[in-house]
């Protein structure tokens, strides 16, 4: 069995387990939790492709989220397009914005802090544009009319949304596995670890980074599109503000950058934590993000390889002591 075949097993188990949740669990709160955790996982996966595998740290990933969200919303509300048709367009828009930003930043060799800042600048520019034009509803934003039935990509109850989110996350896991076991993934990780050395070995670093940001953009746009269908509303601050940029980043970091399961583990851990704090401290705005920020600092200081890294270290310690 090849390594990539072995990797499929856990993905299938995870998918099956998650798919069974609506059948096993009645509580609306728990179903909502799983939906939101999967949504968080998708965003963390998206960020992980570019930063974990590609080494390019984006601090403004919301630029893709908002693109997907507004594409999804505007196509339905302004142009009457069916949600299922709008969805691939939203993903394509995310990829296109990724290529645009990548072409500008990578061509001019922006890396590290400069790249992070540039993504922030783009997110802000998009926010201002969304806030200005009537097509995107300006400051008021856009609202998707409620429609019954899956033909409009809306569902009664949470289960339908859970399956959609799950489908995306499974696709994300497949993409992560592909990155671990493919030529493109090997090239991407080489560029991350040492761009010059990779170039000397024949890797077209520019093309590879572009590919990564396009994939990452499309995945994040999927999250934005999902958000709009689930919550029926989007505005410039939600779409392009720092909240989802942070959630994507912290989720991937806490779970373990550059791994297949890190983003999923991290997102679920974060959501468990914020649920726990909500139970302990009530629904005070800012508490969960504050905890995310503190976690970010702590993980970087003490466990830079994230939860998956900690687990792997534990396993090898147990193995060594035998």
């Amino acid at each position, binding site marked *: 069995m090849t390594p990539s075949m072995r990797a499929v097993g856990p993905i299938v188990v995870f998918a099956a387990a998650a798919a069974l949740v609506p059948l096993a669990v009645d509580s609306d709160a728990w179903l909502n939790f799983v939906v939101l955790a999967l949504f968080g996982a998708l965003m963390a996966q998206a960020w992980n492709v570019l930063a974990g595998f590609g080494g390019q740290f984006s601090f403004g990933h919301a630029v893709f989220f908002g693109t997907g969200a507004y594409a999804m919303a505007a196509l339905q509300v302004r142009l009457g397009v069916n949600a299922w048709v709008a969805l691939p367009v939203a993903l394509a828009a995310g990829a296109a914005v990724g290529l645009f930003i990548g072409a500008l930043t990578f061509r001019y060799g922006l890396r590290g802090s400069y790249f992070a800042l540039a993504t*922030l600048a783009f997110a802000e520019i998009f926010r201002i544009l969304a806030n*200005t034009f009537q097509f995107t509803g300006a400051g008021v934003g856009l609202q998707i009319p409620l429609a019954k039935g899956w033909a409009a990509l809306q569902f009664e109850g949470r289960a339908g949304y859970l399956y959609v989110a799950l489908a995306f996350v499974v696709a994300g896991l497949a993409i992560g596995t592909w990155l671990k076991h493919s030529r493109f993934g090997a090239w991407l990780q080489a560029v991350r670890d040492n761009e010059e050395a990779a170039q000397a070995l024949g890797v077209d670093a520019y093309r590879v980074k572009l590919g990564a940001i396009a994939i990452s953009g499309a995945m994040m746009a999927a999250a934005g599109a999902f958000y709009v269908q689930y919550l029926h509303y989007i505005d410039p601050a939600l779409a392009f503000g720092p909240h989802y940029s942070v959630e994507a980043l912290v989720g991937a970091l806490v779970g373990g950058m550059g791994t297949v399961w890190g983003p999923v583990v991290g997102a679920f851990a974060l959501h468990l934590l914020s649920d726990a704090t909500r139970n302990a401290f009530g629904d005070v705005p800012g508490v969960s993000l*504050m905890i995310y920020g503190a976690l970010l600092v702590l993980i970087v200081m003490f466990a830079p390889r994230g939860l998956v890294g900690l687990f792997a270290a534990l396993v090898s310690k147990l193995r060594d002591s035998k």
Partner: protein
Amino acid sequence: MLELSILWPSIANGLATGAIYALVALGLTLIYGVLHIINFAHGAALMVALYGVQLLFTRYGVDPYAALAVMVPAMFGFGYLLQRLVIGRASHGKDENILLVTLGIAIVLENLALVLFTADTRTIETRWSLATIDVAGAFIAVPKAIAFVGVLAAAAILLAVMARTDLGRAIRALAKERQGAKLVGIDVEHVFAMSFGIGLACLGAAACFLLPAYYVNPTVGNGFVLVAFTIVVLGGMGSFAGALLGGLLIGVVESVSGLYLGESLGQIGIFVIFLLVLMFRPTGLFGSKA
């Protein structure tokens, strides 16, 4: 459209705002120049300082300008401890880690403020809040005019410290040559922390000048972060003169483009400039390092 009577007030106001931006950017430049870290927590730290000034005024009746005596040392101490205890420990030698840690600190500070003070926007009303002075035909709010003068004074003090004192010399040595500075016996960790402290002290001063003419809420820092970075990059990473002039320039650009494009769209001008500078002239207008 280019009537001086409309343009000049816009420029004058832009200069006053730009002076504040410059002071914020000076602190950032110092931190980048010495520690080579991009301090993502700079905006949040400014927000903390602004709340400090606001609380001193509303709880204890301390005039914002008198608050300089409290805020500058307090922010210095805060910065020193932050670098010494948190940021310095987290780097593990990798730049990306510092990026992430300062981001994390920013998130914690912002949301802590949200929890403690709610999202309400707060302002203060001082004796001079509503007064204006006539500057060659432009009516500038008195707090803004005071800010302009105050910032120039603070910048002069900062530059004097850097040029004349032992600490300033140590900082400059460390900025230029890390290993060499260690060999000469400079306590690197201490000087790093001092530099970070001074950088935040600039924010303490900036907050005292800024609040009377502005406002504070938990997210006010965000607006300053990108602007401050734009200035630092534009002026040349590590150049004080560049940060000062860059700040004034950006203030004017923001004001004038707001005049022609409207408040909202005018903001875009700054970010577009930022991207253009990053791409085409990353050493900035006065930069020394590539």
